[in-house]
């Protein structure tokens, strides 16, 4: 093997232009992730003269798929005893109950519309609005007022610029 390389392939035909590589667990050396450099050495370059950094490609070798940590919001929910789906059930229950109550109220009023008499309530309200205050002369404020015949009020019309 080339000095410094932890993995080297055998000499392969250049005309193929490809080589299948399978990273193994040994490459990681008990770590989860290692950064490696892959370089290719043609047969006309000696081992001593070969510089892997000249035309190498950097990449990572990892054990498996990454599992990201929970966010602060998720951790707070877990501390409150709400795990995953429970939160959605709680959030959906309240608006659902309101909708159900409105529907029930509508049907209740609809079914009882023939057994309901609010005549008194309505007449009382109307009477309150049309309350008879008495005749004009009964008001103390206007007792001394003489009932003068109606005369036309003066009108103020706009004057033209010529006037």
């Amino acid at each position, binding site marked *: *093997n*080339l000095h*410094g*390389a*932890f*993995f*080297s*392939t*055998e*000499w*392969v*035909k*250049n*005309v*193929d*232009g*490809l*080589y*299948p*590589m*399978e*990273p*193994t*667990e040994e*490459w*990681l050396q008990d770590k989860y992730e*290692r*950064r*490696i*450099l*892959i*370089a*290719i*050495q*043609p*047969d*006309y370059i000696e081992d001593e003269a070969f510089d*892997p950094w000249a*035309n*190498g*490609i*950097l*990449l*990572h*070798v*990892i*054990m*498996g*798929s990454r599992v990201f940590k929970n966010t602060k919001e998720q951790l707070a929910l877990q501390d409150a005893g709400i795990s995953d789906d429970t939160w959605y059930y709680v959030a959906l229950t309240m608006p659902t109950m309101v909708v159900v109550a409105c529907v029930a109220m509508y049907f209740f009023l609809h079914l009882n519309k023939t057994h309901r008499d609010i005549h008194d309530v309505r007449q009382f309200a109307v009477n309150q609005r049309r309350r008879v205050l008495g005749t004009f002369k009964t008001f103390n404020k206007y007792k001394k007022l003489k009932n003068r015949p109606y005369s036309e009020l003066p009108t103020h019309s706009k004057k033209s610029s010529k006037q």
Partner: protein
Amino acid sequence: YRNAVNPRPTTTTSEVIKPWRRTIYSTQVEVVTPTVIAGVTFSAKPAVTPDPLQPWVSLDKLGNPKTVKPEIKKGRTVRGTPDYSTYFQTLHVTTLTGDEIGAHNMDKDDILVEDVFEDEDKTYVSLNPIIRCTPQRYRNKGLAKDISSEPFCTPFENVEWKIDHTYFVTWYTKFFEDPETDKIAEKVRLHAFYVKEKAHEKGFKKR
């Protein structure tokens, strides 16, 4: 109401890919043994009737193979077999005189310098179904993405290889030309080195 759909029975095959023989360079007979690597069959026996819409194998940024099936849409072939232009051809410059050409609009003493592209020997190249690497498919690498990834096409820089998965490393074969003899390297080998990372490269930021 909907008719029940019977699940299709899963079929398994015990078919062994058999070696086959072919005649190369007009007279030489050789036996070709197909090999399967990461689900890709290399050196497979070509079909008796060549299919113009023959599937080919592309590679993603990791070097994973994925089969591409060409289609004909509106009279045009979509996702057809890749065209390598003149990347795998050899350029020859020929100098011809007017006397040799015999063109009516050329004097006898005039010289025509003509570029002639010679096709490569496809005896073994044709057995590879995977897309070949050309400079057209190089990617830029580096922090500023201003360095060409030559001679590699796959994998891209900083991708993550999982262990026990097979990835194809591809390179442009004509990149390795001996400066002394001007010949393309016949054999190459790949090396893998560990790279020491700095703390900030690992993701450990200074507190």
